[in-house]
């Protein structure tokens, strides 16, 4: 038996904590990428803000997106609900509310991640320290995933954690793909094609996908192949298709799953029709928009079906009342 409120808190707890990890990976990858780019290529720090979906909020406060402000906003800022620090704080607060359904140590580990972030993240984070600290956050988050994988029964609570993680991941992957548009490549430059490869290689790196891509697809990072890999590969755990497959597996273990499965199925169908070569030419942005709307629809369906219970069991209750009278 799983309370709707607890299920919702579990779902959001992993979404927050996955978002913290993904943001940390993204920042590390983009920082490395910026070192490779020739000076004539404009690497917009605001692209990062767009990927994180916080550009509007950022520009309420700042006039321009320089590295220091963007980093502070994405990592430490308490006014940014998606900053790494805030995601970890929210995940910790959520964890307090369902300690009784999780392995007892989980709270200690989440607490430790929080204390690490709280104490180790200085007000001004230098580029030099940034990489190590963000790696520290990623490693701690990964040990939490490992703890759950190794000690938690595959019960409803586990499935809601898994669902939140995969939906957040699919979301981040699609956002990062979209960010490829944000880097303006000089089309007339002789280094154009080479730069293009560099860009797609870094997109893969920001999702920790580069090595697996090289092993299973190609040593060259061409746009069409990377798009196909990140959207459609079934085996890579951060591809959108893989995440949706996980969500289907999760939902199939849950009661009353038909409505949600239908919504997920639609997004899966759309992905199957996608063609990397075609999308690399044009239409990637529009397609990603469609995927994003699909993910929003899945979130909505999960919410309506499991978290915001209508009094749909009215019939069930009247049968029980009849029994009670006997």
């Amino acid at each position, binding site marked *: *038996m*799983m309370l709707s409120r607890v299920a919702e808190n579990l779902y959001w707890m992993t979404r927050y904590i996955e978002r913290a990890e993904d943001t940390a990976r993204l920042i590390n990858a983009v920082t490395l990428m910026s070192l490779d780019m020739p000076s004539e290529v404009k690497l917009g720090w605001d692209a990062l803000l767009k990927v994180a979906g916080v550009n509007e909020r950022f520009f309420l406060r700042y006039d321009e997106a320089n590295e220091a402000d963007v980093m502070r906003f994405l990592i430490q800022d308490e006014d940014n609900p998606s900053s790494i620090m805030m995601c970890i704080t929210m995940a910790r607060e959520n964890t307090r*509310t369902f300690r009784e359904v999780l392995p007892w140590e989980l709270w200690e580990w989440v607490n430790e991640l929080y204390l690490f972030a709280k104490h180790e993240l200085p007000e001004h984070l230098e580029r030099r320290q940034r990489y190590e600290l963000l790696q520290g956050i990623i490693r701690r988050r990964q040990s939490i995933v490992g703890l759950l994988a190794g000690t938690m029964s595959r019960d409803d609570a586990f499935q809601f954690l898994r669902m939140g993680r995969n939906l957040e991941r699919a979301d981040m992957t699609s956002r990062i793909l979209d960010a490829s548009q944000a880097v303006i490549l000089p089309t007339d430059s002789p280094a154009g094609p080479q730069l293009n490869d560099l860009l797609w290689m870094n997109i893969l790196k920001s999702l920790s996908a580069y090595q697996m891509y090289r092993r299973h697809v190609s040593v060259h990072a061409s746009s069409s192949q990377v798009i196909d890999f990140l959207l459609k590969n079934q085996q890579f755990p951060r591809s959108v298709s893989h995440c949706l497959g996980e969500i289907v597996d999760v939902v199939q273990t849950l*009661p009353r799953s038909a409505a949600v499965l239908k919504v997920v199925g639609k997004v899966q169908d759309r992905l199957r029709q996608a063609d990397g070569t075609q999308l690399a030419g044009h239409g990637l942005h529009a397609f990603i928009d469609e995927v994003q709307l699909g993910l929003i629809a899945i979130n909505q369906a999960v919410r309506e079906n499991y978290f915001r219970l209508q*009094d749909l*069991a009215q019939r*069930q*209750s009247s049968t029980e009342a009849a029994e009670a009278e006997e």
Partner: protein
Amino acid sequence: MSIAWENYQVGNAFDELVAPDGQPRPLARGLCDFISGLGAQELSGRAAAVDAAIMTAGITFTVYTEAGNIDRAWPFDVVPRIIARGEWERVAKGLKQRLAALNLFINDLYNEQRIIKDGVFPAEVLADSKNFRTACVGVTPRYGVWAHICGTDLVRHSDGQFYVLEDNLRVPSGVSYMLENRQLMKRLFPEAFARYHILPVDDYTAQLYDTLAALSPRPSQRPVIAVLTPGVFNSAYFEHSYLAQQMGAELVEGADLTVLEDDCVYMKTISGLERVDVIYRRIDDDFIDPEVFRADSTLGVPGLMRAWKKGNVGLANAPGSGVADDKVVYAFVPQMIKYYLGEEAILPNVPSYLCMYEKDRKYVLANLDKLVVKPANESGGYGMLIGPMSSAEEREKFAALIRDNPRNYMAQPTLSLSTAPTLCDEGLAPRHLDLRPFVLQSNKLNVTAGGLTRVALRKGSLVVNSSQGGGSKDTWIVEESQ
């Protein structure tokens, strides 16, 4: 460096472990020798290990301050308190007797009110009771029991006797700390356990489960039990979560529950609505049902009272139990025991002066500097005047309060709470204690083996409440034939 007990200064109060001549009491000899053998450094080292264990396990309570709520680690003292089993059995018998009488009293008040008609209990006390719930009139819960979980505060006076300080019949807390304290002691001082035969305490959660399960309206099936919490910001949230986990019950908030037209209570789960049989509610009466009590409450469940009155859900403690959790009503408990059970009270009350009576009031007003004055319906040590430590200004304020609303105040002589050696900055020093055993009643009566010993960590302080700087100790009920 070993610890010399000769340096331990027993004050005027009764000390639980050390006799006035500075020698350990016979039953405490083994413990005191063990502590001396450890030495001061080892003892401090183990105390630090206990604190670290408490921190990582997140055994916390919340303190409300103006600056916001602070989650504090539970302060724990490593020196246990020892009570002989023979003595404890008498106390336990007295506690059961007391709760049985209190439950008969509550049931009587909400039904025939025989005790008032027979002139044993004054009608005007009832008339002014804040916690008498008219919505409960005419109800007789299963077994006639209203207060299923009672936390009785006991103190040991300098005469060596246990006295009842108050009966907590609404939502007494602290039992999870009693259980955790024992776990901590076992982990960190296993050798001490080898020297004594100590009664275990961990059957409490199973007994609590049985007490609650016996209230199920559907006795033929495994009952669905829920612990109703106000939420994560409540000071006792740790305990709510702990008890739910230990009993395998669901931890729910008001919004997780709904009462349908069939007047049954349901939980909102991912599979749909699931009927709830028994609710252990850790929310005050005022907030449990906005249809009946405070309409602005968002913590409760609209319709819960309807469901309870129809017998479709068990509620522990029953709404309205607080009528007997009133420091003026307290003064009448010995008479209740006599009236309902035909017995003399085994555990004495602290002598009490009721300001509603003119003679008592005059005495209280004339002796404010010697007495402890308590409002009838506060808990957690709030709103009290401790005469010997008060300023003239505070006494004046209380005199005005008493004259204004005499029924709301009672006074007691300042008791000398017993002490026990407690690890402080200056080493082992006496600190004042009380004891909160937990008594359970539905179809059976049970008392914990010991209870939660709370200790005032500040030198000379008599206030043991955790919200005001109190800590706790493990409580050992031990066989005497060691």
